[in-house]
């Protein structure tokens, strides 16, 4: 889960993973729903909202918790008693419309709920030719067979740049859609879908009169074939891939960088030069963030130690860093602040860093 708060105050939520365990106060998982809610604003009806919710792709670990925590259906149906978060505008990949009909990819219940809501909003737009907050949607990328051609204003095509959010122009950001790429044919579609065709977006944030104060590259779970294609397309103008902050694709998976299996081939596994190049456009001081468990030196993937080594190799020459959201051990989220000088990681607070930790409360303690 990534929450971007623009200088204008608007918010873009990117993917969520709110497990049932996280909703249990005694559970081990941090209460991410509470962390999210504490950072969102309420409107005049006391309704919590995000201005945009970008779902990069409909895997369970990117959409889990949608029904529990977000209002679905018409905005008029929102109620204070349930106090769910209103999504003013959905930003959705077109794959959502297809996966629901494919047997190879079964959508989890939350993803199916997202697809239903997305289709409701598309239908609303088709009926009225416009939409208001809570009914708005942007479809990011064209579908095969020109199925999305009729969407007009709500369709963003690959390589287009947009600066509108929830129906308003916002000068504090611009987003360039890099993927999903429209597949040329069924065979390619098969390859791409197996590689977790995600929304890939370069997000440029303005701050303190610096229109390009920070660049984020966000690629969901996109894997090696996607990144190779992206590189082939942009290698002559690689600036569209440049980043200060890269959210390491697929939770720091080796499969974003290589065709080989890390667990089987280990050090024999070869990195794809093109995929690596696509992910190597780090600007000075860039940070690669792994949204994953701590990266361990073992055969697990993701997160994969070999992928981490590649990312360290990419950012070290430019004075950058590799960070994992679970570094530090605390439950507090990793916060990146952007000012005129660029993006900066917010240092961990004392409470969140577990410095006031105690062994009491973790298990039954015998007292003789």
């Amino acid at each position: 889960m990534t929450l971007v708060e623009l200088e204008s105050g608007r918010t873009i939520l990117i993917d969520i993973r709110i497990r049932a365990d996280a909703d249990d106060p005694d559970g081990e998982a941090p209460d991410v729903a509470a962390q999210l809610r504490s950072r969102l604003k309420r409107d005049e009806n006391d309704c919590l909202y995000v201005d945009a919710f970008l779902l990069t792709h409909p895997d369970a670990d990117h959409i889990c918790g949608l029904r529990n925590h977000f209002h679905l259906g018409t905005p008029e149906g929102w109620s204070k008693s349930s106090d769910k978060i209103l999504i003013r505008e959905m930003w959705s990949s077109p794959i959502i419309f297809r996966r629901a009909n494919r047997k190879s990819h079964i959508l989890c219940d939350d993803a199916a709920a997202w697809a239903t809501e997305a289709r409701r909003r598309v239908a609303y737009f088709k009926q009225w030719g416009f939409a208001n907050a809570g009914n708005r949607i942007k479809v990011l990328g064209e579908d095969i067979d020109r199925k999305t051609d009729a969407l007009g204003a709500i369709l963003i095509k690959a390589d287009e740049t947009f600066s509108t959010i929830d129906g308003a122009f916002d000068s504090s950001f611009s987003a360039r859609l890099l993927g999903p790429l429209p597949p040329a044919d069924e065979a390619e579609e098969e390859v791409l879908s197996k590689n977790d065709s995600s929304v890939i977006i370069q997000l440029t944030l303005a701050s303190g009169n610096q229109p390009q104060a920070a660049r984020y590259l966000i690629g969901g779970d996109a894997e090696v074939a996607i990144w190779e294609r992206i590189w082939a397309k942009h290698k002559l103008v690689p600036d569209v891939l440049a980043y200060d902050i890269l959210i390491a694709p697929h939770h720091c998976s080796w499969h974003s960088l290589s065709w080989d299996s890390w667990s089987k081939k280990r050090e024999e596994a070869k990195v794809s030069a093109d995929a690596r190049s696509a992910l190597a456009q780090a600007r000075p001081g860039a940070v690669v963030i792994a949204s994953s468990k701590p990266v361990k030196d073992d055969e697990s993937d993701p997160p994969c130690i070999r992928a981490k080594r590649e990312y360290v190799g990419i950012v070290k020459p430019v004075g950058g860093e590799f960070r994992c959201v679970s570094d530090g051990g605390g439950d507090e989220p990793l916060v990146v602040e952007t000012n005129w000088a660029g993006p900066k990681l917010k240092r961990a607070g004392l409470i969140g860093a577990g410095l006031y930790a105690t062994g009491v409360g973790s298990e039954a303690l015998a007292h003789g």
Partner: protein
Amino acid sequence: MTDASAAPAAPIPIPVARALRQASAHPSVDGVKLVDRVDDEFVYSIDIRTEMPATWRAVGQSPIGVRVVESVNLTFSSLYPLLAPLIELRADFDRSHPHLNPGPAGAPPVPCLVAGSPRELIQTRGFIGLIDQLVEWLEKASALELNNPAAGWEPVRRDHIHDIAVVDSAALHALVERKGGAAYMWAPYIHTRSDVGHYRLHVPIEPGPFGPNDTRLFARRNFRFREDSGHCLAIAAWAGKGGDGQLQVADVYRPEDVATLADLRARAAAYGCLEFLDAKLKHVASRLTAQPIDIIVPIVVLLLPRRPYRVVGTDSNIETCGYLVEVGKGADLLNPETAVRLLGHRDTPSVAVLRRTSGDDLAAATLPWTLIGCGSVGSKLALHLTRAGRAPGVLVDRDLLEPHNFARHAALPFDGERHSLYMISKTYSVAEMVRSLAPEPKRLDLDALSLPLHADGRIAVAPSATAMIVNTTGSAVLREVYGHADWADRPPLVEACLVGAGRAAFVGIEGSGANPNASDLMAEAYNVIRQDAALADIVFSAEAEAIQIGQGCSTFSFALSDAQLSAFTASMAMVVAGAQREGLPQGGEVRLGRLGDDGVSQQWSRFATAPWIVVERTAADQPAIRIHPRVHAAIEADIAQWPGVETGGVLIGRFSQIGNCFQVVDTLPAPEDSTRSVAEFVLGTRGLKTLIDALVQSSRGTLQVIGTWHSHLQPSGPSGTDIATGALLATQQLGPLLMLIHTSGGYSALTTEAVGGGKTLLMATARGSESDGA
């Protein structure tokens, strides 16, 4: 330095080891290592990682030179944790940051981490709290956020300086013109004869010449046993325009490191005022050469750099940097090596200082005000407001300060047990307190009641521009006299008093145009109180206990501790100060405070009142009628409920004898056996007596039934039926009776009263409209 591994094996004290363990656990600490130990002092180097924007991290440091990883030395003495460790940055750390403690140029910079004491921080938040503060300091330093326009320019750290000059900053800064310059001033000083010999100076801002015959510099006299004193010369210097024609602004922060005349001149050059300072220094030096002195005297130098924006804690962009040079006995002003001492600065207690410290805004309105009543509540209100930079301009009270007053009055006895000999008035005692912080207020040792009756008295109570009269006498008569006074431009009254034997408090603030007036507000307060049984019990059940003062003398006053009185008075002072700062409300306002059952807590409520509807009298003796908007709304609602017929009800309120007016604050609905028709409204009786009894009981008689209202379908005055009813009721009511008539054209009224043993009936009619309330 010794290598850690070569350190003697003597164990590290447990508190130090614990501190280091905590430091290591801080997420921003990369490493901790022992770098030196001398006897029982341990020096540790702590590597602190600062999060920086990407482009800065790429080059390893921020534009101002703070490194991504800074090594900071912490020196623990054997007194830790009683004494916080000394924290030193690397010697070449950029010094252009505020919050660096003053120190010589060669020594490592010492960050000033907290406004208070570091050891207090360690006690309250643990050693980790100190480290966190250090991390925060470095992060802000890296981004130059220690100084920013929003928070203001951080003045140069000048803590722990024992030579002090007391200066009125506002007056000093007023010397600074766009043209650069310097000025002499003469400052009386006291010099203690301790080892170091601390100086205390007061620099009055009265620039004057240092004439050829002026010998003040050379005269010194013994002041007291351990001190000597004299007059010294102070030189203030400031910058003008630079070579580029622009005003010279000292926008680079420099920590204080002046130790010699050469340093001082370098500092003056940096602040753009060297040429002006030099001219004065040379002049004084030539005088000293011509007439050498055999004693040591101080010379004060005040550099006044112009900062790019407002200096923190002030309203000015001029900073005051003071220095002191001792001359005489061979020490001179031309030798660059002559020692210079840092001179701390204390402001004179001015309105600006008081306002700032009170969290009040100097730019906020200053409303001249008059205090009537200088007793315990009044004296404390005056003191609170004076300390907030809002002192009263006129004090009115005719009483003397008697011995029993000292139980609660803000003043203390003039001369112990002989106090009463001197006949000290209450206004005098309050004026003495006020004048130590503000211009001396005017005193009127007169009966406040008589003053509104003649023009001279009105001007004395409220000189021109007086914005409010605060009445703390608690006198019901005074409230009526002032509230209803025939005084066209009377400033609004604010009443503040304790009620209910000191267990409740009342503040009333009049609306504009004295509508509602102080008397109306108390009537409204009674109406609010009667509806709250617990509060009514407190306010209306109080039995004033006479306190025996001396044989044959007694006064009405409540037995009440000073602390309890002060607790309420403090709250009332906040309300009055708020009205001063933010301006008076358009409508009136009632505030009621009550003491909780625990005898300590307070609960305050606020009741705003829109302007009342006033039906003015049309003849001299005729009562006026003042109607609360709530009553008008209730009447209109009742009429809307009964279209096409006359309707009516019962009026609740009071009659002010002094104001000769009815104050209507509420209504009782017509009993269910009332009848309504096109021709008339007949007020029934069923259940009405019970309601009236309850009203009188709940308000303990402060409010009563004062008459009735009814509607006329056409604009018209009292009918024959009305007059007959009025005459009947007048004989049954001991005070005047009001029959209020609502018509579509406004209100008219019939007032009747039986006087002369019930034989003479006075009748009068009045006509008014809703807009009369304005």
